């Protein structure tokens, strides 16, 4: 009993540490978010803020209508930063869910082919005559789901519950979808359609608009809330089907639920800002290194770090050079070395 009491104290200490870490991350995210609003080509200083404040005070938003600073702040930077945080959270949490479900720290939404499917769907939508963004999103979502179901079905067909087969099945599906994408790019109009497709593939928030947020925010937030609420089940599912079943869960039903919610999040992210590489793979690993693999603690930390990471990446993308850099260039360039470092740090702990 003595030992047990002492160990309970230790886990209470762990909980307090975890709480502090979460608060620090949330504070950091808030601070970076505010700073990001004032970062960009147009310099908005404190004096401008004061002027806008007094204009708002005297005649409400009507007094700000012609103000360039106000326009840039609320119509360009605010939606852009919000979208970056949401997509970062969505992609990294989806990655964590995939890794838990498939019991493989190498699985990310990219590897199972969701992103490839989404991109193909979006590209198809973009080459349609007089395309609409609603249709592009719908196609991206449907193709993303089709890709991941195809990969799962293939893996199931070849072998039951084999991790390596799942990754290979994802590779096959990705290859097929990518080759179809290549065909579309080849056939697309090189002056109008091709650049639009390339924009999707490299990822960028520079066209972020409140319109996008109105669609993406409810779905991504809703999906994140569902995953957050049900996250303990990921612990049990990560033990594999046999043990999940003997612990009273129906693994297939839970897996379908989690894959559907994650695919929805990824599909919407890709259709609003294109493919963002590495976020879904690296961020869950950072979170796991910080707070351990227990999804109870790890999912919220993953979301916070993911939001922070993509917000910073987008800040770099729009301020490093005079023209915008593609987002994936930044995330892959910074994510890959981080991942290499984590591999080195966690060597021998049995998670690779």
């Amino acid at each position: 009993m003595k030992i047990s009491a002492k160990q309970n104290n230790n886990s209470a200490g762990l909980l307090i540490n975890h709480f502090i870490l979460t608060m620090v991350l949330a504070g950091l995210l808030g601070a970076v978010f505010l700073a990001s609003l004032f970062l960009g080509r147009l310099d908005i200083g404190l004096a401008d803020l004061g002027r806008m404040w007094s204009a708002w005070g005297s005649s409400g938003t009507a007094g700000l209508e012609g103000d360039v600073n106000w326009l840039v702040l609320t119509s360009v930077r605010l939606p852009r930063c919000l979208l970056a945080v949401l997509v970062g959270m969505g992609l990294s949490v989806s990655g964590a869910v995939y890794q838990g479900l498939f019991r493989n720290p190498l699985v990310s939404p990219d590897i199972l082919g969701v992103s490839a499917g989404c991109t193909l769907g979006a590209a198809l939508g973009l080459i349609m005559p007089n395309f609409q963004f609603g249709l592009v999103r719908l196609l991206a979502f449907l193709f993303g789901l089709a890709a991941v179901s195809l990969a799962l079905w293939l893996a199931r067909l070849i072998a039951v519950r084999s991790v390596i087969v799942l990754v290979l099945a994802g590779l096959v599906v990705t290859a097929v979808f990518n080759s179809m994408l290549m065909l579309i790019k080849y056939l697309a109009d090189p002056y109008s359609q091709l650049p639009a497709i390339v924009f999707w593939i490299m990822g960028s928030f520079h066209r972020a608009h409140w319109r996008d947020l109105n669609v993406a925010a409810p779905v991504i937030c809703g999906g994140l809330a569902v995953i957050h609420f049900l996250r303990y089940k990921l612990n049990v599912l990560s033990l594999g089907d046999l043990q999940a079943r003997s612990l009273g869960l129906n693994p297939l039903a839970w897996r379908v639920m989690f894959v559907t919610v994650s695919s929805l999040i990824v599909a919407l992210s890709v259709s609003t800002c294109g493919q963002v590489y590495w976020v879904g793979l690296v961020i869950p690993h950072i979170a796991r290194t910080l707070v351990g693999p227990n999804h109870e603690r790890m999912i919220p930390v993953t979301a916070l770090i993911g939001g922070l990471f993509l917000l910073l990446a987008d800040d770099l993308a729009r301020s490093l050079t005079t023209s915008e850099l593609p987002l994936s260039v930044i995330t892959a360039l910074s994510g890959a070395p981080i991942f290499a470092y984590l591999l080195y740090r966690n060597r021998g702990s049995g998670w690779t």
Partner: protein
Amino acid sequence: MSLVCSSLSFQYGRDRVVDDVSFQVEKSTFCAVLGRNGSGKTTLLHCLAGILRPAPGRVELEGLDLSRASRIEIARRVSLVPQEHTDIFPFQVIDVVVMGRTPFLSPGGRPGPDDYDRAWDALTTLQAGYLGERNFNKISGGERRIALLARALLQSRDTVLLDEPTTHLDFHNTYRLLGRIKNLCKARSIRAVAAMHDPNLAFLFADQVVMLKDGRLLAEGPPEKVMTAKGVSQLYGTETRLEELPDGQRLFLPAFLQGRGKEGGESS
């Protein structure tokens, strides 16, 4: 108060793995299931755990028909210590043990301090409290078995199924683990059903033995009665010699070892 298994059969595709097996296990009983490799031991355990649905035949646990019960209802009464545990994320042992509370949680529920207290209790009952904060992937195979047994005890106070509980255990730990399981059966009136490979261990620890051959029930009953030289020979398809030790313990040895001393080997 018993686990009743009546004319239970199961087939994978056309392959009938378990064929018309009937027996029953009372409370506080340690029941060993013996048989050759591929004789249907694991399949039988999975049917008892409600993971596989037998057809035809049925499993009843104290009046509850498992084929009609929900997965959660079954999980609250029957727990399983699986044969092998593939590597997972580097969970702390206590996080793995506390998962035994899963069938008692709501869909969005997470284990609370009370559940963790119970998990620590389950570990300390097995004198394994020291494992609690260690990395599940880095403890030995024997320690993993203990941790999974603690999880199984946390999950159900009724029936614990063990699939080859002593594989990967060393000489001393084998006897210690089986001794603990036997004590738990008596002290907490738990029913344990274990698939085992070694007839000598089964004879030492089990209160009841179920002998499976090619999916069929060869014999069933108390070990003193069914574990004869003839019975065991038939079970494993090899001539077996029985040595009666002075304290009543029986020792089964393959007959081809006879007279070979230490040089004994496979005879053809």
